[in-house]
């Protein structure tokens, strides 16, 4: 039966209202990274830029640590975090590795395995 009743999945952070509220400033900052000037401004002074979007201390620390899981816990949406990753010149496999605690090669090997259906 199709229902939107709340469910939880291990290793998964559903981006819902609660998270969207918590992560609003963080996501808004990352949304701004669509613009080159914004990326330059962030790169010039990350702390000031985080302050401009009123990030919480935990969010600021997670940005500083490039800690994707912490950013997700703090309400980050992967669509906007991807723009932060882009700014750090990381691709989706790099991000995958960071989140799963694997090396990038290990992560890629897992994808290959999953792709063959060997789960």
């Amino acid at each position, binding site marked *: 039966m199709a229902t*939107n009743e709340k469910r939880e999945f291990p290793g998964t952070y559903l981006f*819902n*209202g609660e998270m969207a*509220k918590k992560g*609003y400033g963080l996501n808004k900052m990352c949304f701004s990274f669509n613009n080159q000037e914004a990326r330059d401004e962030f790169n010039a002074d990350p702390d000031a830029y985080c302050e401009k979007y009123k990030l919480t201390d935990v969010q600021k620390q997670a940005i500083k640590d490039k800690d994707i899981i912490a950013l997700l816990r703090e309400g980050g949406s992967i669509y906007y975090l991807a723009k932060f990753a882009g700014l750090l010149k990381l691709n989706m496999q790099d991000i995958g590795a960071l989140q799963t605690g694997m090396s990038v090669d290990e992560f890629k090997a897992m994808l290959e395995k999953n792709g063959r259906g060997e789960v």
Partner: protein
Amino acid sequence: MANLLGGIATSHIPAIGVAMDKGLEETPYWKDFFDAYPPVRDWLYTQEPDIAIIFYNDHGLEFFHDRKPTFAIGASELYENADEGWGIAEIPPVTGETELSWHIVNHLIEHDFDITVCQEMKVDHGLTVPLTLMWPGHKYGHIKVIPVAINCERHPMPKPSRCYAFGQAIGDAVRSFAGDQKVVVMGTGGLSHQLDGQRAGYINKPFDLYCMDKIVNEPELLTQFSNYELVEKAGAQGVELNMWLAMRGALENEGALKELHRSYHLPISNTGAGLQLLATDSAR
């Protein structure tokens, strides 16, 4: 569960805001209009609602044609007013509410309403004028507001039946919320008026009175209209009746309603201005 105390329908035209700012309430032009409000204010004062869900239409402050939602709902802790371009005074921020907002949003999507969800949303006179009318002197800071904007500007607009069903789903969502908040719903705008075209100034008093009559216990007679029929009978902006219907829809599953107050006055600016208070059994 949260309780719906009742619904209020009121005009929201900007001229009212200007009249209040200038203290014109007792002048001959305005007196009849403003004299209708104290009973509704008293009721609100006695009932002490926690939350007001306000159906209104944006008039080009927050939304432009680049991305115009059919239904938009706020889920923010604060809503700001801003310069609307024609010189009405900006008013203090409106207090929001996020928990019931998101609960309603979830319920609406689950029930096939394709809303735009707003965590930041400037609210215009369509919302701020009714608040100021209910709590003069901008003393509405204590009440939490959930703004619900319905497209009444560019066709295609949601049909009266759809707006009613939309309100009904919001009413159901409120009743299924695990809190004990007291909620009022407000339908703002209308009634008959036309601002644009050679037919500008059109007002249809018999039709307005018919709507106020039927909305109490026979709203289904009103939801059968198409928006084009509303334009024909109530003028190009008479489609704002849709906000009243959404308000009434929210009370649909509340059983019989008590009409505690009704007044109608025209013209107020270019409109027929109706005020109506419908209470549920949950009201004291």
